[in-house]
């Protein structure tokens, strides 16, 4: 099972929307995709068509085995497990990740983890095969966060693949254009692709769907397909 962690470098970078869209884009190549919502906001389900009234998730049960009934399947066949309503402790979170790894699925399937922005990297037991994407926006806050993170990463030895993924990039903005250009030349872990700012991503949530399904001719669709393709190449790089 190939594991991808997605986390906003700060809150509100649009990480959850990326998770949902990426899951659908990966599902299109006929592999199993399992998405795990680790964020207490419990909003991944909204992107994948779950109704707002649905309130339970893995945090409402003691173990993953007990929560099996909470696995949902969206219209594309993406399997996902919502967070639920109970506040959970760190060790519970780590257990659920570990238990998910034990699920009997084939090696090609994907496990996407939507991590809350406030939890730090140390709390996940990352191993060498994992890919960690930190979602950033092109603004000054993220700029400083990126350098902070780089500093930290340099201090410790990290085995996993860590990348910064630019979201909501708008090349018309002078600041964003300049920042991205700067990062492209200076930031070593910047992913070679970015997600363009696109209204259809937010619009499709209003349709309780994802952009990949709603707007096949949009740039967003292209971006997520490219992202999926790039992740496939990264993952095979691991093998």
């Amino acid at each position: 099972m190939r594991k991808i962690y997605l986390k906003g470098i700060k809150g509100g970078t649009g990480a959850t929307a990326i998770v949902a869209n990426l899951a659908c884009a990966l599902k299109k190549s006929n592999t199993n995709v399992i998405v795990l919502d680790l964020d207490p906001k419990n909003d991944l389900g909204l992107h994948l068509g779950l109704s707002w009234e649905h309130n339970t998730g893995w945090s409402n049960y003691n173990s993953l085995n007990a929560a099996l009934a909470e696995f949902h399947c969206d219209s594309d066949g993406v399997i996902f497990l919502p967070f639920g309503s109970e506040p959970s402790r760190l060790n519970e979170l780590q257990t659920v990740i570990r238990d998910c790894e034990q699920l009997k699925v084939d090696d090609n399937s994907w496990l996407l983890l939507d991590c809350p922005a406030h939890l730090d990297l140390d709390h996940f037991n990352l191993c060498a095969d994992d890919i960690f994407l930190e979602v950033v926006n092109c603004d000054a806050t993220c700029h400083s966060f990126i350098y902070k993170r780089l500093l930290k990463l340099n201090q410790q030895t990290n085995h996993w693949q860590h990348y910064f993924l630019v979201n909501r990039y708008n090349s018309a903005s002078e600041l964003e254009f300049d920042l991205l250009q700067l990062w492209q030349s200076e930031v070593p872990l910047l992913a070679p692709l970015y997600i363009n700012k696109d209204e259809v991503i937010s619009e499709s949530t209003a349709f309780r769907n994802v952009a990949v399904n709603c707007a096949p001719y949009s740039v967003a669709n292209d971006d997520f397909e490219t992202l999926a393709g790039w992740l496939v190449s990264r993952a095979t790089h691991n093998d």
Partner: protein
Amino acid sequence: MTKPSRASVTQKSMSLFLSIFFTKKIVRFLFFKFHSYFNQHKVSALAAFLLPFLLLLLSIFIKLDNNNKRRLKAKLAYLYPHVSKPIVTPANSIRIFLQSLYLLLFNVSVKKNAPKNRIRSHYSAKFFQKSARFIRYLDTKLVRSCKRLWLLGSSKSTTQSYQKIASAKLWRNRFLHFMFYGLLALAVVIFVTVPFSLEAQAIFISLILLVSYSLRRVKGQMATIAMITLAVTSSTRYLWWRYTDTLNWHDPLALTLGIGLLLAESYAWLVLILGFFQTINPLHRKPIPLHKDTALWPTVDVYIPTYNEPLNVVRPTAIAAQSIDWPADKLNIYILDDGKRPEFKEFADEIGVGYLDRPDHKHAKAGNMNHAMKHTSGEYIAIFDCDHIPARSFLQMTMGQFINDSKVCLVQTPHHFFSADPFERNLNNHRQIPNENMLFYGLIQDGNDMWDATFFCGSCAVLKRQALEEIGGFAVETVTEDAHTALRMQRAGYKTTYINIPQAAGLATDSLSAHIGQRIRWARGMAQIFRLDNPLLGKGLNIGQRLCYINAMLHFLSGIPRIVFLTAPLALIYFNAYIIYAPFIAIFLYIVPTLLQVKITNSRIQGKYRYSYWGEVYESVLAWYILKPTTVALFNPNKGKFNVTEKGGFNDKARYDWLISKPYIILLAFNVIGMCYGVFRLFFGDTSQIGVLLISMLWASYNTMILGAAVAVAAEAKQVRSSHRIKANFPAAIRLSNGRTMKVKITDYSDNGVGIETAHEHMCKTNDKIELLMSRGKKQFSFPTYICNTRDKQIGLTLRDLNLEKQKAFIQCTFSRADAWLDWQDNFKHDKPSYSFKKVFTTSIRGFNNLIFHAPNQLKPLINFITRAMTQLASLLPINPKKVF
């Protein structure tokens, strides 16, 4: 029924008289018919009297009731569709006669109500179809078997043995070497000079023709070389025959004219042979990759000489030059402004390129660049005419040659034009037919490169400063400084190279007169070089280089010979002068097959770069204009000054350039009148001359066609846009004002607009503001644009008020893309002479139409009269009955 109420005495007596012979009913019928003819149809009294009797007589044989009559009428209208309404006119009588003859003689299907029968065409057409199919069948069989034979002959073992022979030690022996060449020359002399009887010539030439005809589609350079050998043999034989057998020594007029034609033919032969030599084995040079470490790369100065071109022409060039992929500290761009314009200096400062001007204008472009050389210091100098926008990969593609070989002093790349040249625009065949330039940059330069004789073309090239300094800078003695400079560097022992990958694109000349002006300059310059620094003489060149240069110069002397060819057949028609003094059958056996063979060979060699017959059209347009300057320059090489080719202009309305087309119109008039006179002579002249007369008229009609096409070029077409649109095909995206994005394909662009195509329906409206997202490498640029028009999935965008930064980005994303001009030569299929002939023919017709359309008002009545007479005459001809539903 008419019943005479007040019957006159005559009528009564008449009816009494008639009733002796006929029944009462018939008498009444006769009277009824008489009245209707006389009163209603206004037929003369006698005819009105006689016609009823005729009808009566007919009714004995044919039952003429209403039904039958209608059917008969319909049938007649069907068989004689072009007979006009008042039937009894002289014209109609001719029509009826000819149509009856046609219907009788040809097997026209007259069953009108069976659509299947109409598809089954009549006998003669079927015969033609059948024979065409048969010929095609024979052709494919022939070509296929020839291919097989050829492959058999050129299998690996034989090439190895060729190589063994070629590398044998025997060749080191000088004596043997010369012996072999001597034998070869002897064989050629025998082949060429041995006199043949007509039968022998027929067999000989048809064999040669057969071989080269069937070789024409066999792949490989060896087949080309074989075809060239055959063409050289037969054309030389032809010329020998012309010199020895065909001059009429007894008729001084025919002799003078004949010698004139013969000299023109000798010129054509020489150019043909040299052309074969030049292009026998084009070297397709490949770019050489540069060293990985950019610190080792040399410094390059980019010169953009300008004189009077507007800033908006120079701007994209300068910006694109800045975007060339090369270490920034090793790339210096200079605008060499000979016009000393302050706005250019301002612009140069603004974008950060160098600006050089000079106190005088001595020696035009060459002087300008020499002056710049004094103020710059780069090891290499890249030159772009101010309208040639370079691609970012320009230096990457070219510089490797210098690093590879220190003797290389020039790397030339093709001149590609994104706008239509006057020929293409006025004939409306842009991107359909290879243009005039294509032959030179697609084939001849590659051929020259093989002989190490690549010409410098003044732009889109890189030169080595060291070599330039050694010869004292750019040559200033002639008006074509480029060719002369390259010649000098070659004399100094340097090599020139050519890379046939378009790495820059520019504007073609925008009117025929400007185009001709440019060619006049080239022609004059070449003639000057011929006189001042003759490549046949002097040191430092090898024989191949000398021949290539001399061919280039000869090409520009084509004025007189071309005019001779365009008028030669008229000598016989007007003056009855036998300029080719030989029996009809001999002329037929020598000229036609030789011409055919040369055409086939040229079509094979030049097929992708110049279609058959278009060379004649291009030459005919220029012939008159380059005649004088070349002749003058040959006698007095220092006369004449440099004229700047105007570019970036705008034709705001369609017009006809009478001044420039005057020479062709006069030639055309001679030819047309000659044709009419020829027809007259065919009917009323000496019957023994019909053969030669026919050949002359055939030739004259070919000339008429070529001249018609030349005339067509002079009709200057209207230019729709002020900036030229360049066809493209690469992905981009748009972001609408509501924030949604859409993937699009860029279909064309210009310096202030973009055409895009969306993948599915869009909701965009004119004047919407949208963002265009284009990428260059990792960078994405966003351009604010307005929609100027929409059609289905097509959207036209205009860019407005871009700041300098955005302008630069736009040029980097479009004009300076490395792949921007790459599909240039692949657009064209290989030449098909028959197709090309058709194309020239329609162009010619278009020329005649233009001539009539643009004719001055005084001539309008005459033209109207002639057209009416022509249509009237044409309406007399029999036509195929067609059912009208």
